């Protein structure tokens, strides 16, 4: 979906979340801890919430939120972010986008 890709490229690190989703919040905290200020899109506040959800699922997310994009590319959900961080592959990825 164009809107999703457009939103995903708005900043180096973009997180699609929902205002009620605390796991999305955890992911946001992690990036902030790494020195990155991610752009948060709370899709439940977007009128096209359903379409965005469907688009994210179509891109390969098992659940719509949290969906993390780095450099405009989909990295995955909480699992992928955590695995990457523990295997030391997350930090190099966000290096260009540090504050």
């Amino acid at each position, binding site marked *: 979906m164009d809107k999703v890709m457009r939103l995903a490229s708005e900043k180096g690190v973009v997180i699609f979340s929902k205002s*009620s*989703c*605390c*796991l999305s*919040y*955890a*992911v946001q*905290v*992690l990036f902030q*801890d*790494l020195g990155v200020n991610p752009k948060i899109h709370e899709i439940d506040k977007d009128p096209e919430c359903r379409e965005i959800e469907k688009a994210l699922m179509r891109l390969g997310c098992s659940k719509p939120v949290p969906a993390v994009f780095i450099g405009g590319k989909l990295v995955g959900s*909480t*699992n992928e972010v*955590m*695995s990457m*961080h*523990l*295997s*030391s592959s*997350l*930090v190099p990825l966000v290096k260009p986008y540090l504050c």
Partner: protein
Amino acid sequence: MNSTSTHFVPPRRVGIYEPLHQMGMWGDSFKSNITNGNMNTPSHIIIPNNQKLDNNLSEDTSHGTAGTPHMFDQEASTSRNPDKIQRRLEQNSEAARKSGLSKKAYVQQLETSRLKLIQLEQELDRARQQGFYVGNGIDTNPLGFSETMNPGIAAFEMEYGHWVEEQNRQICELRAVLHGHVNDIELRMLVENAMKHYFELFKMKSTAAKADVFFVMSGMWKTSAERFFIWIGGFRPSDLLKVLLPHFDVLTDQQILDVCSLRQSCQQAEDALTQGMEKLQHTLADCVAAGQLGEGSYIPQVNSAMERLEALVSFVNQADHLRHETLQQMYRILTMRQAARGLLALGEYFQRLRALSSSWATRHREPT
């Protein structure tokens, strides 16, 4: 009625009824007076009371204490009616018989209860040894843990019992192998089995979390000392590293770098999840407290609250995923032999915690 019952008051109330106690003494003198034919001054006080006592005593024989009242009674009746004495004697013995019977039945009941209690204590001990949760939770039956909990949890508890047995067996094997000589293939197999065993537990927990997330979250299946260290339904990944790291003899420079990096990223991931959990607690608290408190009404947005609780399942799964990844990374960084030593150390650490729980539990039960 009152004057009668005062004869049966317990010792501590005697003070109030001192005069009546003295009536007993007068009763003696009354008796002697009769035999002596000497009705002295006290008796004219006694006689009206006697009449009252006479009638009331016949109704109160079931409270029977052989003593002053009856003697009084007998003295009073002797002077009037031998048949009355006979009737009263019969009533007394019947009452004694009845109370004797109920006493026997009561004692029998006590004996049965005592046997049952011994049985239950033995069951408890067995369960504790196997590392089952046997506690005093308000919403869990400490003795009937399998029967009263939901089937998903009952199944998990049984599986966990087997998991611990297998864990203990693997620990023994690792110990034996590390103290002797072992070929690489066998070592790799042992290490990989041990890793898989932990991953099995995470799968079991995931299933159990769907049945009862609070049960998994609070580590109810663990022993008390283990539960003290609980973090989102299990051990802290950073604790795992803290326990393991001192046990590695020689680490290469690269290994040292990798381990430091893992420690930091593990801590960061843990902190992020902890903060997510705190946010969940706050939002749930807000949800429950919403609306008018004090009106005796239920949660106005109960659906919203339920949705928040659903999120708990995700958190438990995420925490287990973090544990999984931490173990996986340690396996990647260490040599096979180091990994074996690490898994042995970790296993023994949990064994010690379980043993500590048992010691603590028995210490509590010793009479002081």
